[in-house]
């Protein structure tokens, strides 16, 4: 018998404000895959990621995590998931270090410093988020991908406001993650340059 897929979406219906966005969406995600959700503006890409993350409920359908139905109680999947949405999820009043220690309290100082130097944030370690640029804030949010060890990454337009160098760093980190047995589901409007992804099209 075949072992169950990492994530199975079966007959998923999503409704946002009276509009049905997905009608009976079906797909499987296996370990080591990068899945890119495609669609026009307003097609429901962000909504799909939010449903998987458990931010909003689906109208109908089931989500299976290693064959286990988690549609009602997302907490088992959430423990293995890192979701970074349109909003960065970092607090303006805190510094870069405080924000990261809030998200992952058990990170060692070495790991924190090495991650921040990869992303060019080390000089900003104790700078308050409210005095960073948009791209720097995005880098702070994304640095959780280096620090937190989670299997599933749900990234909603992670490349927005990153420069070319930032995009390259993130792509190579995604590649490393899936080689190590992780899974990435992302939405983006720009083409991925160095990594191969499987595309799922949401027709509007």
């Amino acid at each position, binding site marked *: 018998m075949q072992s169950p897929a990492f994530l199975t979406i079966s007959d998923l219906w999503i409704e946002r404000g009276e509009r049905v966005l997905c009608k009976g969406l079906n797909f499987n995600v296996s370990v080591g895959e990068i899945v890119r959700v495609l669609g026009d503006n307003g097609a429901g890409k962000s909504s799909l990621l939010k449903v998987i993350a458990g931010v*909003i409920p689906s109208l109908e359908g089931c989500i299976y995590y290693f064959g286990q139905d988690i549609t009602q109680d997302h907490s088992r999947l959430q423990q293995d*998931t890192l979701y970074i*949405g349109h909003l960065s999820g970092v607090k*303006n*009043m805190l510094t870069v270090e*405080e924000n990261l*220690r*809030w998200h*992952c309290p058990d990170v060692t100082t070495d790991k924190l410093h090495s991650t921040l130097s990869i992303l060019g944030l080390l000089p900003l370690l104790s700078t308050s988020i409210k005095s960073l640029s948009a791209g720097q804030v995005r880098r702070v949010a994304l640095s959780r991908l280096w620090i937190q060890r989670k299997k599933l990454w749900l990234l909603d337009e992670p490349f927005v406001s990153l420069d070319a160098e930032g995009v390259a760093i993130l792509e190579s980190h995604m590649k490393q993650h899936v080689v190590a047995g992780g899974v990435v589901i992302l939405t983006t409007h720009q083409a991925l340059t160095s990594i191969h992804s499987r595309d799922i099209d949401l027709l509007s």
Partner: protein
Amino acid sequence: MTYTSFLKSECLVLWRRKYDIFNALLFFIMVVVLFPLGVNASPEFLAPAAGGIIWCAAVLAILMSIESMFKEDYSDGSLEQLVVSGLSLPLLVLIKISLQWVAVIFPLLVMMPLLSEMLYLSSGIFWVLVVTLIIGTPSLFLIGAIGSALTVSIKQGGVLLMLLILPFYLPVIIFATSAIQTAQSGLPYSGLLALLLAISLLFLVVSPFMTAISIKASVN
């Protein structure tokens, strides 16, 4: 994220935003100080009215501080992160409300001896006032958190919040002030204190769950 790291970050944010709480307290002091000047500064009038004045001012100050409780978390996405953290949202909410309560009520209690002196409150009644504040105000924060979470996604949610939660504040204000008045007339007031405590305990159980549901509806 863990419960302790959440607690730490919330403490830090509260500390960085201490001027908001300071403003609410300043407002509280101004109401209490201006009231005697505006109406009547004689001890015969102020002593019986003191409990009511302090309680009304405290309720307004609490409303001010509670309105923006989830605003920033909502707009920067931290609220969303709490929902997907895999931790129990009601428990996270309870931690946040408790911290907010301590941060507002502790300085308020510290100022209380001075203010009650100004309002000619006798020392016996002063302690009744302190007890009503300690056991009565938790329910105000717990109720306010539900309203604050419900209205967080609405631009001008402040007025709506008042309308939503003021009816629930009324019993607390009435029981608290009548406990003080009953004590002033020398009658037993422990029943009223028990009622206050019961309201707080009820909302201690109900509010975290209702706030969590409201948050989930708001981040939608």
